[in-house]
């Protein structure tokens, strides 16, 4: 059936386009989900191999030391030591085959590989399952408290309409209606939060309710409820558990070095033993999950402090450093390989998976509303809007649109007048501290003041009392000049309290940080965002163009901007040029990881042999 060619606009409006029904779109996306899940599992395996290679020797070391200690008190049967020798022999065969290409028969090679890889793998899986169980009941409540969510106001017409629309969409989907919570922020965004369809809540910002028409709001809510019904919450939860497991490994390996890691570990244990029944348990879970998810970032504060040569020297510290040196290598190897693999291998796979789920939710939303135009125009409106939700970074992959930078430029920092005030307050505090210097005629500029401030803040966080005093003096000086500006600066005592785990302090800090991102003017401290989308170089939200194109195929009348061909060509050429460098860099990193793994193994073995000899020597005495 050939139609005469007509101009594209008429064709678009009157003749049927090649459409894809939303059922087909859903089927396609569900199949893609399976394929991507396999990819993610493969990525996890790839990431797991070097990790297991590093962790397993550590496990053996711990076991051996424990055995030695027990042996001191009651000698273990000789069969145990024979078994240990066998295991070690197999391990050596495998390592030698790898490094020096010494021939080995396949069977002992297989056993050797198992010996080297299995304990670490089993430990990781057990930890991941543990994370799943641990945080199943936590999560939702605490996070909402941090975001200052509230119930909808039944006497306000728009909020009543919102609650009604959620009920309508839940009926259309055949699900129990999730509770709706509102947050009052300048950003317009919405998310579905929770761990299961019974537990789910829909979080909507008041600005979104104001900006969108009823049809568009319906589309957005249909997307969120459809994603709940499709089981996306469970997927997101499992994904978060993966990153938390990595964080837990890092925390455990850090604990000999840093008090912060030890405290975090203690909090996790305490929460695990009975925290979900604790008062404020849900908030505690959210805080712990947040800390763990951040753990994958390269954070060397603890180690720096430990090996700080300018600090107090003592014989005890030197001995401790010497003894723990091999673990330092293991620590570095684990962190480096975790960071690299989660950024380049696991992260992108998970982002692709989340994107496919988002397309699926879009198609399901069309099924629920039978109105693709609503969702399409809502997405377009949101793309031009400010979508920052302060404090929501931990769940950025759950929101319907990515959390962009605020369009109103609120996060760009203090304006010139405020800079002057800040610099003046800082100078004043400096003068009160160093009473020997006379009041300096020239005030330091804002840039220098900011540098000094950051350094002093860091010192205060490590417990320097003088730095703490300086911060307090600066704050009171600022209060004298401009009280509203001072209210936006966090109280130094709160900073210290937050480090120690004071929940009230953390809540206060979060509130201030929320104000800063929303409309404050103090330079917000670098908030390393956690959550799935920060741990990879691919965003977990598909671009607006792609979503609109798919909605268009399902029947929306979205106006797509013409593809920028020039940009594509430039980008293609650029990536062709950069490709060899990127490949070289990746190869170097892999080599570095391999070297560190081997070094950690070597150090560990030598160290272990030394300790074992020491124990047997003392045992025979």
């Amino acid at each position: 059936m050939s139609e005469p060619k007509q101009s594209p606009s008429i064709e678009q409006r009157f003749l049927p386009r090649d459409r894809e029904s939303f059922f087909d779109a859903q089927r396609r996306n569900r199949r893609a989900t399976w394929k991507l899940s396999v990819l993610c599992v493969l990525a996890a395996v790839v990431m797991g191999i070097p990790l297991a290679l590093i962790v397993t020797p550590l496990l053996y070391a711990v076991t051996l030391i424990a055995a030695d200690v027990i042996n001191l008190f009651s000698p273990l049967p000789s069969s145990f030591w024979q078994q240990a020798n066998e295991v070690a022999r197999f391990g050596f065969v495998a390592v030698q085959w790898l490094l020096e290409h010494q021939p080995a028969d396949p069977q002992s090679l297989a056993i050797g590989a198992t010996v080297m890889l299995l304990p670490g793998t089993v430990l990781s899986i057990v930890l991941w399952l543990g994370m799943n169980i641990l945080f199943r009941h936590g999560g939702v409540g605490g996070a909402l408290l941090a975001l200052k969510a509230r119930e909808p106001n039944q006497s306000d017409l728009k909020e009543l309409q919102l609650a009604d629309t959620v009920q309508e969409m839940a009926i259309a989907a055949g699900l129990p209606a999730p509770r709706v919570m509102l947050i009052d922020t300048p950003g317009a965004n919405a998310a579905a939060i929770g761990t299961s369809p019974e537990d789910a809540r829909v979080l909507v910002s008041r600005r979104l309710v104001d900006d969108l028409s009823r049809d568009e709001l319906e589309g957005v809510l249909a997307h969120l409820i459809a994603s709940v019904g499709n089981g996306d919450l469970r997927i997101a939860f499992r994904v978060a558990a993966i990153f938390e497991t990595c964080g837990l490994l890092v925390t455990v390996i850090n604990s000999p070095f840093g008090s912060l890691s030890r405290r975090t570990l203690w909090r996790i244990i305490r929460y695990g033993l009975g925290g979900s029944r604790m008062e404020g348990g849900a908030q505690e879970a959210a805080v712990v999950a947040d800390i763990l998810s951040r753990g994958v970032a390269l954070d060397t504060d603890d180690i720096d402090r430990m090996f700080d040569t300018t600090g107090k020297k003592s014989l005890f510290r030197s001995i401790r450093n010497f003894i723990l040196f091999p673990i330092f290598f293991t620590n570095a190897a684990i962190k480096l390989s975790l960071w690299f693999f989660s950024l380049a291998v696991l992260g992108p796979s998970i982002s692709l998976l989340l994107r496919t789920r988002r397309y699926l939710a879009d198609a399901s939303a069309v099924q629920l509303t039978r109105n693709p135009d609503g969702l399409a125009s809502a997405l377009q409106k949101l793309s031009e809007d400010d979508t920052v939700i302060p404090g929501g970074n931990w769940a950025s992959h759950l929101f319907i649109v990515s959390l962009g930078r605020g369009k109103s430029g609120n996060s760009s920092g203090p304006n010139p007048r405020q800079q002057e005030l800040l610099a003046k307050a800082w100078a004043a505090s400096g003068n009160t501290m160093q009473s020997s210097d006379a009041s300096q005629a020239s005030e330091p500029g804002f840039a220098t003041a900011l540098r000094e401030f950051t350094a002093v803040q860091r010192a205060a966080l490590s417990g320097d009392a003088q730095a703490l005093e300086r911060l307090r003096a600066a704050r009171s000086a600022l209060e004298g000049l401009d009280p509203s500006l001072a209210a936006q600066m966090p109280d130094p005592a709160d900073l210290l309290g937050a480090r120690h785990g004071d929940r009230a302090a953390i809540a206060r800090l979060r509130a201030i940080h929320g104000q800063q991102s929303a409309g404050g003017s103090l330079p917000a401290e670098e908030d390393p965002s956690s959550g799935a989308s920060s741990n990879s170089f691919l965003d977990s939200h598909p671009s607006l163009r792609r979503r609109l194109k798919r909605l268009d195929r399902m029947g929306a009348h979205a106006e797509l901007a013409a593809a920028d061909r020039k940009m594509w060509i430039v980008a293609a050429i650029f990536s062709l040029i950069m490709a060899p460098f990127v490949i070289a860099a990746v190869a170097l990193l892999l080599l570095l990881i391999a070297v560190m793994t081997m070094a950690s193994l070597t150090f560990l073995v030598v160290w272990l042999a030394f300790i074992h000899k020491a124990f047997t020597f003392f045992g025979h005495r």
Partner: protein
Amino acid sequence: MRISPELIGIVAGVILLIWVISAFNALVAMRTRVQNAWAQIDVQLKRRHDLIPNLVEAVRGYMQHERSTLEAVTQARAQAMAAAGASVQKRSAVESILSGALGNFLAIAEKYPQLRAVESVVLLQEQLTSTENRIAYARQFYNDEVMKYNTMQSTFPRNLFAGLLGFSQTAMFTLQDADRQNVQVKV
């Protein structure tokens, strides 16, 4: 172990039996969901019945010239509630008449701008609109489930024995002719 034809036949028979049982369970589960979806429509219809008296009372003072419209609504509601146990066709007929009467009423209420200032009326109207939406979505969900159920029954190989096991095609909820009449707005 020698593999004799009888053994293969027995194993195949067992596998077939297991498959038939699982298909039967799937069909039963689907049928129950269809019934549940139908019951959901009932819930929303009842909600509408409960909301109407409040709304009529709230606007009676303001819309004294529209007594016939209000009477039509109240009467249609009484009829719908009376037909609670009747057949599906009768019930969808009277509910459609009620939808028509309500549509008339809401269209006419637009002529009274002073109603917009009365908060209780605005909220009640919103609830009524939402209830109409809910009925529509409940019907849509019911139709979607019926589609899945019918497809499940008619695809090969289930179609071979679905009729034998007592499953039948279910009718979808279609618009009655009363619903399709244009809304009469008396000017």
